[in-house]
């Protein structure tokens, strides 16, 4: 297992480097630059700005300088768009927000989704099953950019229970709607996958044996069925977790949460090169890390897998 970890982490370094170079090239080939504006800057002003941010250097030198800065000083550079914020500032502010609502969304999606899936499978073809299946279909076809403004209309305008947006330092009132909007479709997928995996497991021989031994249904499910049924769920949860904690532009746009998702999209529109790179590297690292964790969890859940 240790071997796997070392091997994967070694591969991660060139992977990230390729990601950096590719992003750099793509970014520079996009038309326009960070200082392209409706009022084109006089050549001299533009030259001053480019000199200030090192954009007057040859392309290869910019990449080298950038990577050196990141590796040696963990400095992702200044934002080109926001004059008083560095990329480190932007990530330090936005990422904890995203991580918080992403984590809660993940937790709730897992608990509700798995519970719903297990019960639907146990009571297959009952009203509970139909309700669960109906809910999952509904939740999946309702995109969160439709659900988000609907939530604001219901909870803020009609009921007046919750603030319509903002983060407010992570107060629970501000977190309810983002978490609902972000978790529902994941919840639905988890429920659906759990249900079908559970149905399959419940029909297998070892469950029949367990039941024949006279174990209670509860014991059979918890001790024997749940773990194998979780394998397909787990392969979904890994990427889902990364997706949730790396931010959702929809959530940030509709609830003004100030998370990293909107910063990422904005940085692309603004051609804020350093912010694009900083967030790309952050998300790339997280993706690699969580994929590794999921692989390790596989080994724990499925005895057939050994590294």
């Amino acid at each position: 297992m240790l071997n796997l970890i070392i091997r994967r982490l070694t591969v991660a370094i060139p992977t990230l480097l390729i990601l950096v170079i590719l992003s750099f090239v793509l970014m520079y080939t996009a038309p326009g630059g960070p200082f392209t504006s409706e009022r084109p800057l006089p050549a001299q002003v533009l030259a001053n700005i480019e000199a200030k941010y090192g954009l007057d250097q040859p392309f290869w030198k910019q990449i080298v300088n950038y990577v050196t800065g990141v590796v040696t000083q963990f400095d992702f550079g200044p934002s080109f768009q926001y004059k008083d914020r560095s990329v480190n500032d932007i990530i330090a502010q936005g990422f904890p927000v995203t991580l918080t609502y992403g984590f809660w969304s993940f937790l709730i999606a897992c608990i509700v989704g798995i519970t719903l899936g297990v019960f639907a499978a146990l009571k297959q073809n009952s009203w509970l099953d139909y309700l669960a299946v109906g809910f999952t279909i509904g939740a999946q076809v309702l995109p969160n950019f439709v659900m988000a403004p609907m939530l604001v209309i219901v909870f803020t305008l009609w009921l007046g229970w919750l603030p319509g947006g903002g983060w407010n330092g992570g107060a629970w009132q501000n977190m309810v709607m983002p978490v609902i909007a972000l978790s529902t479709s994941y919840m639905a997928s988890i429920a659906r996958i759990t249900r079908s995996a559970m149905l399959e497991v419940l029909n297998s021989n070892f469950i029949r044996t367990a039941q024949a031994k006279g174990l209670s249904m509860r014991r059979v499910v918890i001790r024997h069925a749940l773990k194998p049924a979780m394998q397909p769920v787990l392969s979904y949860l890994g990427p889902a977790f990364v997706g949730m904690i790396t931010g959702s532009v929809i959530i940030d746009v509709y609830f003004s949460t100030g998370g990293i998702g909107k910063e990422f999209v904005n940085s692309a529109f603004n051609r804020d090169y350093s912010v694009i790179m900083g967030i790309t590297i952050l998300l790339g690292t997280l993706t690699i890390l969580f994929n590794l964790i999921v692989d390790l969890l596989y080994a724990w859940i499925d005895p057939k897998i050994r590294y």
Partner: protein
Amino acid sequence: MTFRATLKATTTAVLLTGATAAYADGHATHPETGEPLASEQTFVYWVGDESPSFDPGLTEDVDGSAHARDLFEGLMNQDADGNLIPGVATGYEVSDDGLVYTFTLRDNAKWSNGDPVVAGDFEYAWKRAASPELASPYSWYMGLMALENVDAVIAGDMDKEELGVTALDDTTLEVRLSQPLPYFPQMVVHTTTFPVHAATVEAHGADWTKPENIVSNGAFKLSEHVPGEKLVRVRNDQYWDNENTILEEVTALVITDENVALTRYLAGELDQTQVPAGQFPRLSEEYPDEAVSVPSACSYYYTINMTDTTNPALLDQNVRQALSMAIDRDVIVESVLAGGQKPAYTFTHWATAGFETPDVPSASMTQEERNAKAAELMAAAGYGEDNPLELNLIYNTNESHKSVAIAISQMWKQTLGVETELANQEWKTFLETRGNQDYEIARAGWCADYNEASTFLDLMDSNSGYNDAAYSNPKVDELLAAARTSDNPQANYTEVEQIIADELPIIPIYHYAEVNMQNDKLGGWPFNNFQQNWYSKDLYKIAE
């Protein structure tokens, strides 16, 4: 801190708090209007995105300028009608040749840390804004002000100390221009000319605008800034006219989606928000006291590529005339936009100070007459049903621009048989395409930097960096150059507008309006200030 010192500090704080009790506690009514004042004096308004900066030297957008106007105060302010009124300066004198302005500063203006605001703070700020080290995207504004040596300073060929601004003493600021500029005093209302606190800027560098560092001289000071969420400013008790400030707290909430902002406005979370395109008629019916539309200092037009990379048909003046005449601007403003915009047949916004919209032939015709004339011109140019003209039109991705483009292409098709291919482009790509004249017809908008017609018409100068049509007419250049130093430039502006209306390197479509939902208990909003330069110190909340 020792116990004694803590006690002293606490006592001072208590006394200070007592001394600066809320305005509304002592005054039941507004001193001028006599309206009853609400006990809670707060103003919460919508902004669509985080501003790049509110550092006066670096401010580049409308929202950032609004933050800066509250946090800082320049030499002159504007009143509710856009007229100049004293700010930090109590007045100014101008030399006979119009090249030297001498501003007299009040001696009681203070920074939020208690330091006096002196002429040297303006000198420092202006030199900083023009310097290549700051590399401000708005340093061109200093160039527009025609300060002595400004171009050489921006270019780095001359030390910033050579810039034409000098503090003669603490209350006297001398400004030297390279050419007379009759509207110069209007220009010092702009945030780029606001003072900054040198010691703070030097001590904290780019971080000086963070709430824990900032020192400012406006009626409000920064109390909280969560980028992407909100910016909160509170009354500055060091401000020289603090006793007349009524609002206690002003909050800008960043809400990207206009429709969510509207929902939150209706839920009472905001006092002001923008009306999403097309919703004004419904809202003004449901909330007649809250839906407001006022002229806003921008013009919407289509620019035509006049270089040889364009569609050759567009180099024919008859074609451009026909395209312009076939646009039913009344339909655009009344049915497509429906927010109180006004049809435009000339470029300069009709409400610009001192500007009289000149008569141009197409403006006085009916649409039927225009359509008939357009068809005639098109036929004269050799296009018709059997030889239809094909055009490309680009606009930046936006629902409202799309609706306008669809409507106009439809009008061209029906009246002239023109086949228009529409394409939208993401903002920066669009700017690049348009700036490189890699287009045939492109959507454009221009907003006034100061309240005078040259802010629009200078775009038609063949040397203007913003002349995306690449239009060049020596006569226009000459008229504009003469207008710059003239005491009465209206005649020149009229002539330029008439030439533009005839040659049509740009097709004016409409003049903008600002369409807002606004709490009817918010008083003092400067509806008649054409540039929508508002100052929170003039606002107040009326009691229910």
